[in-house]
């Protein structure tokens, strides 16, 4: 026990003496949280919008006015012909093109229906999808209003049946993206920092040759590993605390669930990450190699965690893969506890899987750590 305590003390000394390491541990995560939470939004704003009005009627002008009033669309450009508009789209001057056909108003009144041409620049598929939703919303809103105007007295017998849906967004009433991104990004930074630090730590001893010196001492594997990894567990918990304070103060993210539950889950989750880090360092010889492997896994874990893209939208095989992704469970738990106020029994499945994962990873890591070769 005394040996472990001494190693822990030594590790902390080394961490705080490493002038390059301190900003990595404490400044980068804060920057990451502040920048990413503000930047990683699914809203598309300032869409470059252009239109071709072949009708020049009051109805067509009213429609364009609708787009003008929307906060999402920007810089309305009128194009005299479709050819010029297409050229502008090619040059990237415009992202969404609306084409109002000839006799738009007349046909609408006579036939009660009409078509509009919408062209969207889909180089960025995700943005195009969102732009399409915005356009549809505006056109639908316009549709509602115009029905009342164009329907004539004679048509009164044919009352339109309108089914309206009024969605309620539970646990995030205003669909504020920061409310669900901040817990996720908090997960990301706790994971990244602890994985990189622990992955590089034992390799560093290999690199500078001290591991060889340690290996000829009677120190036990378990003592050494616990002593080496415990400081990073503490740093991970510290990061969570800093992150939660920032989430509360800067982003005003609701925290409905119990803090103790979050800490309980995180304390087990960090064990998984430390196990992965140790495992990586057992199979690498230099910090550079360890860094690349850790980076490789982090990128996959993050992209498949449901943080940026919903897991439900992934193909079946990818969904199966995410079951082996510890970050996925962490994201789920953080969102559930913070936004929904889930209790211990609600997160029990995730907690169990994470604990199992921690057990397996650390078992593998200790098993593969050899004092002789």
């Amino acid at each position: 026990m005394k040996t472990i305590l001494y190693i822990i003390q030594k590790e902390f000394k080394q961490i705080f003496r490493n002038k390059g390491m301190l900003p990595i541990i404490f400044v980068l995560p804060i920057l990451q949280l502040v920048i990413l939470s503000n930047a990683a939004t699914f809203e598309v704003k300032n869409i470059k919008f252009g239109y071709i009005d072949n009708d020049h009627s009051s109805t067509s002008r009213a429609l364009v006015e609708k787009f003008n009033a929307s906060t999402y669309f920007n810089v309305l450009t009128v194009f005299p012909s479709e050819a010029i508009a297409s050229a502008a789209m090619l040059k990237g001057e415009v992202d969404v093109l609306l084409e109002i056909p000839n006799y738009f108003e007349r046909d609408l009144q006579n036939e009660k229906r009409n078509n509009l041409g919408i062209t969207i620049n889909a180089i960025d598929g995700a943005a195009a999808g969102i732009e399409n939703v915005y356009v549809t919303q505006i056109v639908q809103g316009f549709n509602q209003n115009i029905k009342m105007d164009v329907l004539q007295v004679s048509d009164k017998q044919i009352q339109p049946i309108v089914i309206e849906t009024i969605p309620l967004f539970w646990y995030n009433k205003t669909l504020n993206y920061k409310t669900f991104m901040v817990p996720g990004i908090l997960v990301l930074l706790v994971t990244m920092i602890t994985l990189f630090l622990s992955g590089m730590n034992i390799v560093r001893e290999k690199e500078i040759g001290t591991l060889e010196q340690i290996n000829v001492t009677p120190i036990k594997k378990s003592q050494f590993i616990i002593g080496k990894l415990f400081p990073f567990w503490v740093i991970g918990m510290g990061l969570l605390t800093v992150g939660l304070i920032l989430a509360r103060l800067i982003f005003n993210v609701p925290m409905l669930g119990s803090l103790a539950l979050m800490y309980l889950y995180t304390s087990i989750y960090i064990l998984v990450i430390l196990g992965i880090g140790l495992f990586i360092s057992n199979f690498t010889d230099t910090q550079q190699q360890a860094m690349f492997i850790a980076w490789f896994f982090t990128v996959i874990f993050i992209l498949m965690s449901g943080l940026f893209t919903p897991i439900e939208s992934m193909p079946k095989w990818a969904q199966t893969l995410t079951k082996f992704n510890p970050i996925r469970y962490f994201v789920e738990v953080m969102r559930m506890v913070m936004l929904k106020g889930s209790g211990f029994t609600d997160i029990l499945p995730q907690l169990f899987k994470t604990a199992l994962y921690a057990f397996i990873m650390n078992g593998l890591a200790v098993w593969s750590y050899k004092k002789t070769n």
Partner: protein
Amino acid sequence: MSISVSNISKSYKNVTALQDISFNVKAGELFGLIGPDGAGKTTLFRILTTLLIANKGIATVAGFDVVSEYKKIRNNVGYMPGKFSLYQDLTVEENLEFFATIFGTTIEENYDLIRDIYVQIEPFKDRRAGKLSGGMKQKLALCCALIHKPKVLFLDEPTTGVDPVSRKEFWEMLKRLQQKDITILVSTPYMDEAALCDRIALIQDGKILQIDTPQAIVKHYPKQIYNVSANDTYQLLKSLNAYSYNHSVYPFGEFVHYTDSRANFNPKDLIAYLESKKLSNIEIYKTEPTIEDTFMELAK
């Protein structure tokens, strides 16, 4: 026997590092492994310090088998690897304390063993190890290897890259440690250091060429060696190598060590030959063989 090695062989994928090595080191002996870089010295050290497992053969250190009783060996040996491998970002004192703690002891407990060495670095005890000079690092590493009062001390090329004065001091320290009942196995590529050991093993290409006391090894040298010098050493070397009766020609400081293949060699013949090669100031006289000469002869 403090260290006993019998028929140890080790090969890496395609390279044979050690081939059928056997030797014994008595308790309290200062034993030197002398050989050029790549001879297999470090591999042997790593096997004896339980960091590496041999393909074949048996070895015991302090009476414990290196494979089955490796845990006991780790409590009883001190190892100083060739490369400085202490924590550069910890101070002198912290390094020493760290190694004392993981061996389950304290600096005070074995202070008398390291006092002679430690007093020399004590003025710098709050300095980080990375900021020490080469000789100081060496002394600190030796202190760390001694802090748990080991029975056997392994020193892998301890003086490589250390200045001549520190090297001399270092060997004096080893001599003093020997008197405290510590068996020392030391490797070095420097032949002049070999003379300071009790016994030496000459090792090359993973094979032991000879084991004996430095004096006896020198006596085994079969020929009479001559120191030859002239005004132009390069020309002299070329001429001697071209001489049909030469047995060996090695540059040795400002002289060339020369042996002749004939039994009835007369130095005057050689002077005549060298003068015909337009060399002047030629001097030839007899000299005693050194360990380096012996090594070169055996390695031929």
